[in-house]
């Protein structure tokens, strides 16, 4: 139940941060999306022999968080379950990986450790990069930006509505959990025996609320495309962000020689 609260707070915090007036929030969503895409593609393309590049590539994230005035506590908390999962998979490589040792700057580490480290770095980059985008750009602005790309409209609307409906699901779950807690104070948590029926009820109620939200959108003229949301920031700022990210990614991927470490 506390975790439901926390999840709702996380989403609200992201909405709050995206609504603030900072250098990042003023930039074009397309520029931010493009920069994240370049960053993630570069990170994904790095192999175990490029651990140093992966470390260096991630340095762009603290700069982004600083410019966006985003607190670190929440995103680091989001990392915990991801790192747990990735770490478990990566740990298996310590025993099963048969490849040669990999360079980490001036030293060499066993291949299994190299794979584990790479997986962890990629996970960190993905989670913190995506969080940075969501904390500086509202979903609605992102949807408008995505509409300018040759992507299926259904995909964009699904993405946006999934985010909005997720909040409804969590709120309904929180409401039901609170009602349970108040009406069954002697129970610690919800027993397994009835969790199935409660889950079904949760989905039904969330579906009803989602239906109401959708009806409200239709009644106010929504016909499958999201309207434009505000300004797109200065051209210089957008170019600086995208160009800077691209240059840094190219440097880390292509130009960085391993001997400087």
């Amino acid at each position, binding site marked *: 139940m506390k975790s439901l609260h926390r999840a709702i707070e996380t989403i609200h915090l992201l909405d709050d941060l995206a609504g603030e007036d900072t250098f990042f929030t003023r930039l074009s969503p397309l520029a931010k999306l493009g920069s994240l895409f370049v960053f993630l593609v570069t990170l994904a393309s790095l192999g175990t022999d490029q651990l140093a590049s992966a470390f260096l590539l991630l340095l762009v994230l603290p700069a982004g968080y600083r410019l966006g005035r985003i607190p670190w506590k929440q995103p680091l908390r989001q990392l915990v379950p991801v790192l747990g999962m990735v770490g478990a998979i990566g740990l298996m490589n310590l025993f099963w990986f048969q490849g040669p040792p990999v360079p980490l700057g001036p030293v060499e580490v066993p291949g299994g450790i190299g794979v584990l480290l790479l997986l962890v770095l990629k996970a960190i980059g993905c989670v913190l990069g995506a969080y940075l985008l969501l904390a500086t750009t*509202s979903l609605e602005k992102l949807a408008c930006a995505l509409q300018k790309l040759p992507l299926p409209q259904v995909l964009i609307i699904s993405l946006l509505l999934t985010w909005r409906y997720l909040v409804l699901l969590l709120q309904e779950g929180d409401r039901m959990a609170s009602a349970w807690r108040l009406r069954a104070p002697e129970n610690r948590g919800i027993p397994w025996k009835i969790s199935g029926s409660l889950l079904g009820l949760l989905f039904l109620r969330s579906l009803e609320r989602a239906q109401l939200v959708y009806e*409200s959108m239709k009644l*106010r003229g929504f016909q499958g495309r999201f309207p434009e949301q505000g300004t797109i920031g200065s051209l210089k700022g957008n170019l600086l962000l995208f160009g800077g990210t691209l240059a840094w990614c190219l440097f880390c991927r292509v130009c960085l020689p391993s001997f400087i470490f």
Partner: protein
Amino acid sequence: MAAILTLSQLQFQYPSLRPGQDPVPVFHDLSFVLEAGEKVGLIGSNGVGKSTLLKLLVGLLPLQEGCLSVCGLPLTEQTFPAIRRKTGYVFQDSESQLFMPTVESDVSFALRNAGLPAEEVEQKTEKALAQVGMEGLARRQIYRLSGGQKKLTAIAGLLTQEPDLLLMDEPSAALDPRNRRKLVEILRQLSCAQLIASHDLDFIWDTCDRVILLADGRLQEDSSAHDVLSNQSLLESCGLELPLRLQKI
């Protein structure tokens, strides 16, 4: 002047969920007319079909039998967008009506959808927020609003559309006395036709000139607000009571 709303022999029933089960009838042979600028209250006991009727009027439920014309247009799938542009609907649960992150973005949603220029959107949004007394909260996140503030935000969102017909489902629910009074003043000042479904008979007394009373799926009475709301025997026969101001406590 053409009527804003015309219902003729309207019938509606909810389909049965299981085979062999009878459908649930809601109302039958419902007919009335609403003229431009008229303020009409829709009252009846729980489950009589007030919310169902309002949903029918904006095409959220399918028209089964009868004729329905809204703002001069027959209610069909082709005319839904045009009718919805001319009508405003306030949900019973305003939490579900608000879907954008901030007050300003939600209130201006319909205007942006209509493709209006940014300046005009800003102007109309500010005007609507000022009308409901929320001008200082334009940048506030929706989740931080109280229940009453959410209701006022939902109403502001509809005022931007300058509707010809305003449909409201329990608008005074969750409002404190001050906001309730504010809402009464706002509705009195609006010149558009209004159809207000409410259990708050005092609110209906304050805002409506005419009242339609539904009971047992039929129109029991359609008369002036004063005549209907002061008729104790009529109200009690339909599962209601006199407004609080007329009750001797």
